[in-house]
């Protein structure tokens, strides 16, 4: 039994950390957020690293690695709060690989794996769907009512939606027709849920580090504020929350490939905890920063806003806790709103 990364996984992690620290410095995150766009050249570099196809099989043009490797990347992208259409494309790939017909996979999966024909994806159920990264996508994976369907952007109405998180592109999409995927999407959605949880773990980790660094430097009443237990104990709690979310997320990623029968419960446990942790940690980080943390000038806002929005993607904490209750022995409730 080994609940740690192997050498390859460790290398993916450190490569990602270094690359993102260099390319997506906070100033770059701010620049892209304020211009509400992505950097095509940086996306091309991400594609050259092979990230978009990391969890897609080699025969379909990907790297043939698994959920643990995808989760490592999602966590690092969250840590950097990198504005890039990675998550949407990865989720679309998971759904298409699982539920698509041979023909659908043949047509779209190569572009998703290389990142050259990336996909946007619906993050909530009802139409008009909240869709991630619809603009510029080659294809959209939307909800079909009881499955998923493929829609080409030209056949859809895309209304850009300005959420508080400006580091990612969101829109409302309506499309009457579309090409339904024949397979079930439940397992792929659970994998996607774990990917979002991983992003939230990265967001929480970064916010905690910002708070701890600030608490060591900032002095009031003649000493660093981190020496006051009213502050240091809140920082300790950030570690508690972040580590719980991380353990559950890594486990769910491993289970997705190794013990898929345990994935539904594991995925919902991870997402519930990660949604809560990312919000609590970023909000506490703002409190530790005091007034400066509330200014537009301070970078913490990007992580705080991402935490809130990603916390709601593919189901907020309450919804996943409800699912945990069902799966943990209480069964389906009578008459609970969907």
């Amino acid at each position: 039994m080994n609940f740690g990364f192997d050498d390859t996984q460790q290398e993916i992690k450190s490569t990602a950390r270094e690359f993102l620290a260099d390319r997506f410095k906070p100033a770059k995150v701010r620049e892209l957020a304020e211009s509400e766009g992505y950097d095509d050249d940086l996306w091309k570099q991400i594609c050259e690293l092979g990230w978009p196809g990391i969890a897609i099989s080699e025969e379909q043009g990907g790297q043939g690695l698994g959920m643990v490797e995808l989760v490592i990347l999602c966590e690092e992208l969250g840590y950097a709060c990198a504005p890039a259409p990675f998550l949407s494309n990865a989720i679309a790939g998971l759904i298409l690989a699982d539920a698509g017909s041979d023909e659908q996979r043949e047509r779209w999966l190569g572009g998703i794996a290389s990142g050259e024909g990336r996909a946007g994806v619906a993050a909530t159920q009802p139409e008009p769907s909240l869709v991630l990264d619809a603009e510029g996508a080659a294809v959209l994976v939307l909800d079909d009512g009881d499955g998923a369907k493929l829609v080409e952007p030209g056949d859809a109405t895309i209304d850009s939606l300005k959420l508080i998180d400006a580091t990612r592109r969101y829109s409302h999409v309506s499309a009457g027709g579309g090409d339904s995927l024949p397979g079930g999407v439940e397992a792929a959605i659970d994998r996607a849920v774990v990917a979002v949880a991983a992003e939230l773990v990265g967001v929480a980790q970064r916010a905690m580090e910002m708070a701890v660094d600030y608490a060591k430097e900032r002095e009031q009443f003649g000493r660093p504020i981190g020496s006051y237990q009213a502050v240091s104990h809140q920082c300790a709690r950030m570690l508690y929350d972040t580590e719980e979310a991380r353990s559950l997320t890594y486990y769910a990623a491993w289970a997705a490939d190794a013990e898929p029968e345990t994935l539904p419960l594991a995925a919902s446990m991870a997402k519930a905890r990660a949604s809560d942790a990312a919000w609590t940690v970023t909000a506490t980080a703002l409190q530790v920063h005091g007034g400066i943390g509330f200014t537009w000038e301070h970078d913490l806002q990007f992580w705080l806003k991402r935490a809130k929005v990603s916390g709601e993607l593919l189901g907020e904490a309450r919804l996943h806790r409800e699912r945990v209750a069902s799966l943990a022995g209480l069964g389906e409730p009578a008459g609970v709103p969907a």
Partner: protein
Amino acid sequence: MDLTLTAEEQAFQDEARAWIEANNPGPAPHGDLERFNFEREWQRKMHEAGWAGISWPKEYGGRGATLVEQALFSEEIARARAPRPANILGLVMGGPVVIAHGTEEQKERFLEPILSAEEIWCQGFSEPESGSDLASLKTRAQRDNGGWRVSGQKVWTTFAHEAKWCMLVARSDTEAPKHKGLSYFICDMEQDSVEVRPLRQITGEAEFNEIFFEDAYVPDENLIGGEGNGWNVAIITLMKERAGIGTASAVALRRELEQLIELIAERGLGDDPVLRQRIAELRIGSEALRLGALRALTDTMKTGTPGPEGSIAKWEWADLNQALTELATEVLGPEGLERDSEWAYRFLRARANSIEGGTTEVLKNIVAERVLGLPKLR
């Protein structure tokens, strides 16, 4: 990352499970003496089959089990709801300290009777004036031809009545700085100058004791780790106490949570959305505790020493057990508050969880200072 058990680990788990299933004596009886004798008999049985002190090296009578095997064994014990062994403090703290810091003579003298439960151990650390600030303790040890005379008061001592030996930290040098003037002794409890008084707690039972030492004698050969080194030896003892808490306590919590879920279903409260959310939180928390412990295990196997992360596990466990027992009393209503009922006992007993073995506040300090590197207040 691979959480499947290796063939050896699987074989170990199968063997442990089969042995426990065949030998589990069931729940311990009520009543202090009855319980103690029962648990002592259980430990003898464990020892005969080689299951006592499994973490100890083979040369000292243990099994030389890996950390994973230790975790698996405590999970199996918790899963089967088997009783604890009578000499738990000797097995988990006393023995490992003697193995790490003792002389060959001390190992020869003390280890085997710990395993066989022939000699029970207790722990004399906390004092009325020294709880979280352990290093401020005042119990004095003064040289007296070829040994030491100890005077002072210890508190919150389990098994003091049954114990032959007390792991005792006392001040052997009043001139030295407070952490440096302490020594770690193994004090014989069977002498007139040691008096044990039961300490009744809010549950009504007396699980703990106070010990009064009045010129109690400790020969030189019972000093562990050398004069003035008591703080270091004591800290290792406490780390060992905290390190193993994760996996077994997570399994125990899961068992209690399953009972609570059954209760909720029996009472027709299974559709209550608020209860469902709280049950889910407890389920998620206990799983996070279990997985965090497994991650810490992997780290410890890589680095060789348990990190301060054990403090998070202890803190999580206290939070969860308190929340779980509080929810149970809510579900049960007044019935859950009947004196001597199982849930009322658990509910009251859980209040100590955030105090015993390191208060949650001290654990937060450890996390803040040693993991996050925040400056100390002092």
